[in-house]
């Protein structure tokens, strides 16, 4: 396997990891398990409701920056950075 293929594999692994979290906080916590999570509270927020209207959005923001940061590392590691 050449360098570009290894880089692409590492990229795919990272994207899949990020998308699992993306799915978990929105579709999981915010929709599928919302009733179960609503049994818990975060201040005045039922927890599932909080994920649906606040928490998932915060996680999305963090995810993109983590992705961008890790990709920059991969770019350097595999030596495929832009000039």
């Amino acid at each position, binding site marked *: 396997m050449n360098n570009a293929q290894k*880089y*692409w594999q590492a990229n795919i692994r990272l994207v899949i990891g990020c998308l699992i979290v993306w799915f978990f906080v*929105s*579709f999981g916590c915010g929709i*599928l398990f919302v009733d179960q999570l609503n049994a818990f509270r975060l201040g005045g927020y039922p927890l599932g409701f909080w994920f649906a209207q606040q928490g998932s959005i915060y996680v*999305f*923001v963090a995810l993109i920056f983590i992705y961008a940061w890790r990709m920059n590392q991969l770019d350097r590691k595999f030596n495929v950075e832009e000039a």
Partner: protein
Amino acid sequence: MTNLMLTTYIVVGGTFALYFYIAIKTRAKNTGEFYVAGKGVHPVLNGMATGADWMSAASFISMAGMLAMGGYDASAYLMGWTGGYCLLAMLLAPYLRKYGKFTVPEFIGDRFYSQTARLVAVLCLIVASLTYVIGQMKGIGVAFSRFLEIPFQTGLFIGMGIVFFYAVLGGMKGVTYTQIAQYVVLIFAYTVPAIFISLQLTGNPIPQLGLGSTMSDGNGVYLLDKLDQIVVDLGFSAYTAQKGSTLNIFLLTMSLMIGTAGLPHVIARFFTVPKVKDARSSAGWALVFIALLYTTAPAVGAMARINLTNTVQTGEIGAAEGNVAIDERPQWMLNWEKTGLLAFADQNGDGRIQYYNDGGLTDARIALAGAQAAGGDVAAAQARFDAAELKHAGTKFAGFGWQGNEMTKVDNDIMVLANPEIAKLPNWVIALVAAGGIAAALSTAAGLLLAISSAISHDLVKGMIAKTIDDKTELLWGRISMIGAIIVAGYLGLNPPGFAAQVVALAFGLAASSIFPALMMGIFVKRMNNVGAICGMLTGLGSTLLYIFWYKGFFFIASTAMAPDTPENWLFGISTGSFGAVGALLNFIVAFVASSLSKAPPEHIQLLVEDIRVPMGAGAAQSH
């Protein structure tokens, strides 16, 4: 002229002067600047411009109202319209930036080595963007007519004139820098009233925290618990509880996410940054700026619902003097009754207003009166009314002498537009909301118009009809198509087709079911060929259109609908707005099957895919 009007003129006029100044400073000199701002926009600034580009009149004016009325169920819009940026950042933006061309159809045409594919993409782009722009034009007209008391048409012409000035002159470059200014105006206009209202209700100045805090009335009850309790007491379902089916909320969220990632005017923003890694971080910044508004909106919605309910229900439910007397209703209600966005009718003649869930009694009464006056099916309307009345008679509300809900019209848009007045905020805050609403509508309209004009001048004129024109002529064509797009959008804004509200579902459905899968497979599936992509796009497009038309009428002519647009008739309870995700799935399946049955793409296309997957050499990508 009143004090408030004068303040509004000064604030709105000031923002316009700023946009003109930027337009003159940022004229486009070549097609590179006109289409992609010379690829020199800082990622943080591009994020800000993307925020303004993305957040339309619907986000600014309507979303809080949708939350206020929909409660938990409207979360689909919050998650859908933000989660799409994760897909954009990880699956599309960096690779399309690496490819380094000007438009989305251009990538699809090159990657699938097919003018047909490019043409299908151009069609999807124009339909999705035009339908979207109609709503923006309407938003501009409404903001002008309500706040500046200028006739709707004049307001629309002023808005068109401003967009004309900076979009025709500056193209993407002018639009980008104006959008940055518009973002600042709109986020300020959105958060300032929210902070005031959060302070009033909870004592916490941060709306995101205020929504999870206790009410400041000293009882120590959480705001959301209080809200759940008052709406349940009035017969509505609890604010934080789910009302629709889980499958439908799931698919609506998914459709909005992939629709967001597939909207061409948003994707085009990521062509303007200098490097691939800037495209990644810029998507993050875009979402930061969007999240500022999108996490504030739930607080605005919930707090507006409390304020509205308390305005009408001034005392104990069912007490003789528990509701506001019609003669004593506050000034803001009078103001908004004039616009037709708010209306009441005293059903039981007690001189007071009741606002509660009557199980459809008032609606049935209005339908019956309408049938009697217009000579419709009186027997059916009578039967519906009798059933509603019988049901209502069994509720506690009948015991109070109530005879149906009396707030006959509460438009969603009121929740943001009238919010500062409901909370008795100073004039400059109200003026700011006007400027913010106009900024949100203008910035999105400009982005959409630019996507349309680029598709016409670059993909149709330069790409298919007159391939030999030089850069100067193409730039001229860009300006001409921009002028044409503004005129068409203005015409549709003045004469909105009856289906204006429904076509937003169409815009997202098209982007989700046709554009997103084609782009994603173009990048991630090297084996995907022209036959697969075209069959997939047509399947996604066709199935989504068919599903929407089935319930809304073919080309939105209501009489041609094949079944009533109600949950009982939907396939597996999937609403028309949620079908985009299903269309996308069909697109993927058909594309894989068709592609595996036909020839693999040629060598140079496979090399092209390998090339866009690595950031190195993005500057030279033009020469492919």
